[in-house]
Structures are given as C-alpha cells and as structure tokens.
C-alpha cells in the first residue's frame, strides 16, 4: 500500500502571545470595572437614593398649599356679618417690570385704586442692599379675585411681563360697623384679633391642605407622583344677634349720644323668653374692615366690659327682692321725708320735696331714693346681697372669653349703713350693661333668671369651653307673684302723669320700665361729682313680655336725665322690635296703681290692711313715728 508521506511532527499549537495570561488580565480588568459599577450602584441606590428622589421631585413637582376657607359668622337669620372671600395678591418680579413700571402702575392704580407712587416704587425695586437681584415684591394684597384677574389679564393683553397673582383670602365685614364691637377683626395675615373671631377661632379656622403633583407644560401629569391632603373648611358660627335690630340700635344710640354730647353709651336688647341677645350696641364703635379712624379704645364691647354704677334702675331689683321677701307690696304706704340720715351722710332725692306720702309704686314711679332706702332697711343686708347675687350682679354673665366684667358688689359683711342704703337705690356697686339687662329680664320672665347668650345652639370655643343658647342656665330668683307686683310698679313709670319716663310709653302697649340717673365718681376728689350716667331699662308688652331693652348713656352734657335721654331710645328700639317680630298688643287696658296715699283709714286703707293681714297674719309697722318710715295705715 502507498503510505502518505510521514507527517511532520506537530508543534504544540500556540496563539499569538500567551492566551492564558491575556485571559487572566482581561478577567481582572473586567472584574475591576464591574466592581466600580457595583460600588457606584450601591452608592446611588442604597445610600443616596432619597436625596436623588427628592431632587427629581423638585424638578418637576409642584407643592401647592390649599388654604381652608375661614367659616362665616352669620346672624340669627343667616345674614352674613363676617365672611371669607376668594382673594388674590398681586406680586411682581421687579427685574422684569422695571422698564415698563409707569404704564403698569398707571393701569393698576386705575383698575384697582392702588397708590401710583407706591406701586412704581415696588415695581422698580429690583436691587437689594447687598447688590443681589430682587425678584419679588408685593404690589397689592387681598384684592377680590375677579378684580385682580381682570387687571392682570389686561396687563397680559397689553404685553407687560412680570406680574403674577397668588392666593390671598379676604375677610370681609359687609355691615362695616354693624356688630363690629362683638365680631372683633382679623389682621392682615388673616389671624383673629379680639371678639368672636378670636373666641371661636378654632371653629372658624379649619385646616389647610396640601397638594403635590408633577407638572409639565403648565398641566398636571396624570401618571406622575400625586398626593393630596384635602383642606377642611372652617365651620360657620351663628349668632343670636339680629342684624337689622343691631343696625337700628346702633344708629339710634349714636344719634342719642351725639345729641346729648355724651362720652359713650350702650344698648342691649334681650329676648325675654330665651335670654338670647338680639342686639348689643356700643358707641363709639369702629369699622371692622379697618380704617384710619379706628381708635384702640373703641375696640371691644363696652356693654360687656365697662363697669359703672347703675343708679335707679337698681330700684326694681330691690323692690322685687322686698316683695318676694314679703316686706312690701305695690300698695305699701311709705312716708318719705325730705332727707334721710344714714351713717354720717344724708341721702336726698333728685328733686326737692317736703314730706311725701308715696306708695311703694309711687316710690318706683317717682324714683325716690329715700323711699327705697327706707323700704330696704326692713331687709337684712345679707338677704339683699343674696338677692342681688341671684339677679346676676357681682358675677360674670357667663359668656366666656369675651372679657366681660363681673362688676363690683362688696360682700355684705362690709356694708355700712350708708353703703347699704346706697346699694338699695343703685349707687355704691358696679355693674355692666349686659348684667343689668339680664337682671331686669329676670323680672320680665316671671322671676326666673336666664343667662344671656350670644351664640345659637351649643358651641365649643377655642379654650374648650361650652357655650350657646342651648346650654344657658336658668334659676329662680323671685316668685312669679313678686315679679308680677314689680311689673305693676314699673308700668306706672311710663305713665304720662305719674312716671319719670313718659317718653318711653308706646301707645296701645303696656310698657314696664325704670329710669336711672346715677352720679359718677370724680376721680380727682374721690367723691360724687357733677357727671352722670343716665339709663333706662324696660320690657314690653307687660302682660306677656317679649323683649327687654336697656339703654345707658355716660356723661351726657345736655343736663337731661334717664327719662329724657334713655326713654326715646327705648321707645324707638322697642317699637322697631315689636313691629319686626309682629308682637301685637293684647288690648288689655293698662293697670293703674295709686302712687300716693292720704292719711286716714279710707276704704283703701281697710282693704289694704285686711289684705295684708291675710297674707302676713298680723299687722306690721316699722319703728318710728309719723315723721319717717313705712306705715300700713
């Protein structure tokens, strides 16, 4: 067989270079690169992940604050007294608005009523003190959004750049000064200051929300990151105040105070049955929207906070207490001397007279200090003090958080004779207007005191206290018969011939009231000076009282007393109330009660004596002879 040529022995096959070594080097290189990758991966994902995510979010994401709308404050019928409106603020980027500042300012001042010079200054303020650029400036705050939008649109159409709007809610008080003394106000930041705005801030405020979303080209990206916390709007607050009555009372009061050239005054209107305050008017007051004429001491409600000596209106409380304790009744005969000695002082009446023979009704109708003091001496000081406390004097009225004053009523242990006599007819103690109204209202309500309330329903204020008309406390002070007897006495006050306040009478209605003219203490001498506080308290209709109105005017300079100054105000306000709430007169004839008595036992005296003997079982008579004191003969 032929054999193939012998093969050459094969050399061991070798690639160019050492493949194994190259392989190893390559492997090491790759391993190094991969480990760098791994480390970087660890760093990015494990360590810095949060920071990068945040950066990414910032780049395309927008966080918008969703402000909560502040709750409105409305009156008893729902008319708004304070409300929140959408508003916008106009802001500018001065670096962009600088060159067109005059035109922009002219347009804005024409459209929105802004100050031209100030606007130009803001628009051209593009450099800060340290030389850096200023990209932000406030042009106008709290403009209703419709107006602001229209103005900015006009600017855009004209081609001016650099003006933008931001959310800035406006708190508006449509009534301006109506109920401003009660509402308080909100400052430029929207925070509450004073009054109901502050007391019920937690209720009205609500809670702001927040929305975060991605934005592209001015629109939301639906599949982007998106989270929304809905804002919780504040709740509305409903007051017991009637806006129309409040307006009417404020205007009538202002007119009266200005006519009398007095320093200040208050009118308080209360619904007799429920104790709800329908109006609390003060003068001077202010525009709650804020204006240049607001003085600090006009803020707040003097009807709640101001303390003064009530004067003769107090006599009805003393009379009610005396009748309830059984010491007097409307026909009790009192001999009123010219002057009455008390401790080291002498008490006189506001009118000079010889010895008068007045019934208790006459003492009230003619407002005799001496007669009241004599009648009150029958009662121990402690009892009188307790009755007055029951009427609400010397303690707060229970409307919490309003800065209301408890007034001043000294403890009965500290009363000396002259103080006791003074307190009986309304000097020597301090009250606030709302306190007095609530006290007189107790008589109107058949002897049952009801705490006044300003808010309807049951509401919790910022401090967590519960208040409102639904939780107003009631308590019995005097018996219904005593209240009726006192009402009878008060009806004679408005009698044309016998009473001190015929100006307060309303034809066709039975009106019960009481005037007051209290002397004011002169701080310079610490004694009673020449200035007065005149007042009038009353309720109508007397046979079924619906409203209690109390008027007080401080330091009038026209010399008129409670009947001449307070009476007409009462008549106007009460007339308005009776008409507005359709309270028709019952048609019953007015009750006439004799105000004077003649000595000698006439049929009247016998009847009276026997009636009282039935009641008290035996005749009573104060010590002292015919010259002074009570007598039943």
């Amino acid at each position, binding site marked *: 067989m032929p054999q193939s040529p012998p093969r050459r022995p094969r050399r061991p096959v070798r690639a160019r270079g050492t493949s194994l070594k190259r392989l190893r080097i390559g492997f090491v290189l790759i391993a190094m690169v991969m480990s760098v990758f791994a480390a970087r991966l660890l760093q990015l994902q494990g360590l810095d992940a949060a920071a990068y995510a945040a950066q990414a979010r910032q780049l395309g994401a927008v966080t918008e604050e969703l402000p909560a709308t502040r709750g409105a404050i409305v009156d008893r019928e729902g008319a708004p007294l304070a409300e929140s409106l*959408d508003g916008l603020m106009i802001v500018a980027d001065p670096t962009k608005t600088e060159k067109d500042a005059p035109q922009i300012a002219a347009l804005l001042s024409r459209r929105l009523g802004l100050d031209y010079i100030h606007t130009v200054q803001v628009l051209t303020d593009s450099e800060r003190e340290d030389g850096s650029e200023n990209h932000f400036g406030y042009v106008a705050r709290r403009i209703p959004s419709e107006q602001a939008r229209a103005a900015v649109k006009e600017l855009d159409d004209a081609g001016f750049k650099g003006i933008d709007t931001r959310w800035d809610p406006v708190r508006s008080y449509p009534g301006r000064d109506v109920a401003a003394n009660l509402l308080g106000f909100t400052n430029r930041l929207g925070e509450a200051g004073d009054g109901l705005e502050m007391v019920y801030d937690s209720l009205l405020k609500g809670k702001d929300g927040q929305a975060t979303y991605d934005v592209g080209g001015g629109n939301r990206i639906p599949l982007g990151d998106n989270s929304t916390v809905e804002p919780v709007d504040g709740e509305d607050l409903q007051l017991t105040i009637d806006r129309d009555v409040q307006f009417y009372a404020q205007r009538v009061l202002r007119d009266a105070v200005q006519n009398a050239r007095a320093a200040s005054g208050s009118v308080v209107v209360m619904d007799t049955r429920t104790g709800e305050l329908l109006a609390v008017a003060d003068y001077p007051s202010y525009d709650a929207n804020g204006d240049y004429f607001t003085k600090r001491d006009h803020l707040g409600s003097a009807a709640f906070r101001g303390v003064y000596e009530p004067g003769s209106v107090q006599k009805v409380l003393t009379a009610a207490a005396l009748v309830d304790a059984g010491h007097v009744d409307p026909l009790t005969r009192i001999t009123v001397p010219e002057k009455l000695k008390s401790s080291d002082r002498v008490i006189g009446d506001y009118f000079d007279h010889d010895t008068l023979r007045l019934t208790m009704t006459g003492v009230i109708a003619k407002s005799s200090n001496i007669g009241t003091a004599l009648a009150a001496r029958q009662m121990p000081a402690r009892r009188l003090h307790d009755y007055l406390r029951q009427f609400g004097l010397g303690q707060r009225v229970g409307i919490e958080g309003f800065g209301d004053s408890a007034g001043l009523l000294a403890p009965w242990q500290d009363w000396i004779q002259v103080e006791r006599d003074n307190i009986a007819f309304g000097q020597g103690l301090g009250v606030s207007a709302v306190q007095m109204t609530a006290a007189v209202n107790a008589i109107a309500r058949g002897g049952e005191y009801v705490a006044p309330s300003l808010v309807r329903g049951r509401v919790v204020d910022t401090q967590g206290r519960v208040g409102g008309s639904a939780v107003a406390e009631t308590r019995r002070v005097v018996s219904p018969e005593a209240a009726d007897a006192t009402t009878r006495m008060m009806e004679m006050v408005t009698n044309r011939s016998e009473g001190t306040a015929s100006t307060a009478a309303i034809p066709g209605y039975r009106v019960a009231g009481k005037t007051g003219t209290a002397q004011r203490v002169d701080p310079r001498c610490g004694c009673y000076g020449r200035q007065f506080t005149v007042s009038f308290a009353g309720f109508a209709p007397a046979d079924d009282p619906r409203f209690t109105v109390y008027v007080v005017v401080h330091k009038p300079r026209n010399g008129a007393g409670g009947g001449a100054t307070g009476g007409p105000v009462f008549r106007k306000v009460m007339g308005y109330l009776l008409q507005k709430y359709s309270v028709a007169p019952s048609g019953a004839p007015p009750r006439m009660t004799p105000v004077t008595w003649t000595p000698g036992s006439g049929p009247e005296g016998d009847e009276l004596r026997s009636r009282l003997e039935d009641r008290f079982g035996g005749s009573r008579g104060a010590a002292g002879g015919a010259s002074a004191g009570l007598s039943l003969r």
Partner: protein
Amino acid sequence: MSTQLGAATRQRARFSRLAESAVERARLTVVPRGRTTAPRTPFAILVGVVLLLGVVGLLMFNTSMQQASFTATELEEKATILNAKKQELRMELDRLRDPQRVSEAAAGLGMVPMTTPAFLRLSDGTVLGVPERATGDSRFRLTPLPPAMPESFKLKPEIVYAPVEDGQAQAENPGTGAPGLLPEREAAGSQERPRR
C-alpha cells in the same frame, strides 16, 4: 435425527411464521410526510395583531389620559373663575342688602321710621294697637356727626392792648373793652412817678 431436526426446523419455522405474523401485525411504517400541517401564518398574524393592538391601545390610552388631564386642568381653572364670579355677585348682593344703604335710600325717598307699631288683623279686620301717622319725630341720623374740632385747631381771639396816655385815657375812654386794664396802667403810672 431427522425428526429432531425436523422438529427443530418445524419449531423454527413455526416461530418464524409467528414472528413473521407478529412482525406483520406490528409492522411499523414511516408515516408519510405531513402534507396536513396546520398553516402557521394565521397564528403568527394573530399574535402580531394582538401585539400591535396592545401597543397601540396602550399608547392611545396614555394619550387620552394626558388629554383628560389637560381638560381637567382647564375645567378646574374655569371652576375657580366661576367661583370667584359667584363670590363677586354675592358681595354685590350683600352690598345691596346692607341696612345702611337701604335706610339711606328710603330716607332719600322721604320715608321716616315708624313711630308706633300697630297691626291689622286680616281675619276680621280689627286694628290692634293705636295707629298713628308717622311723623318725623322718630327720625335719627344715619351718618355720624363730623368729629369735633380739636382744641388746638380752634382760633383764640387775639387781644391787643393799646398803649394809653395817663391823663387823657380816663376822660376819653371811660368804658373801654378792658376795664381791668386801666386801673393797672394807672397803678403802674403812679408807681413810675417819683414819690414826693
């Protein structure tokens, strides 16, 4: 031997006949080449179509969502604007209902506040209360009085003291406006004279 041989042969022959028949029975033949395979194209087309639909559908869905978000933003803006308009109208309503404005308008028409409330009962026509003609007595100012001028603004009368000759003054001006002045001057004058 031949029987044994024959038997063996016969057995072999039988076995082979059995085997043959078995083989015949179990004869496996190759299946003829598939002319009946199902067509692949429709399936491929189906899958392709599903894929295409899925991709296109997803794209369209995404697009429509974006579109909807634009619409949503637009509508939200519209809602805000309408809300602002509603508030402006409400503000206008409050302004019109303001008791001060209404009172001023009524006063401008010559109306006066009522003096005495009275009622007419419609069921039987009785008049309740004492109806009185409304007079201007119940009127009150709707705007406040202007504030009083402060003391420092009020002009005080400037009193000019005219110089007076000693002897002549008494005779010629017995009752001039400043009676207290003459005795003073007189006293001053007398002091100036040297005492004798």
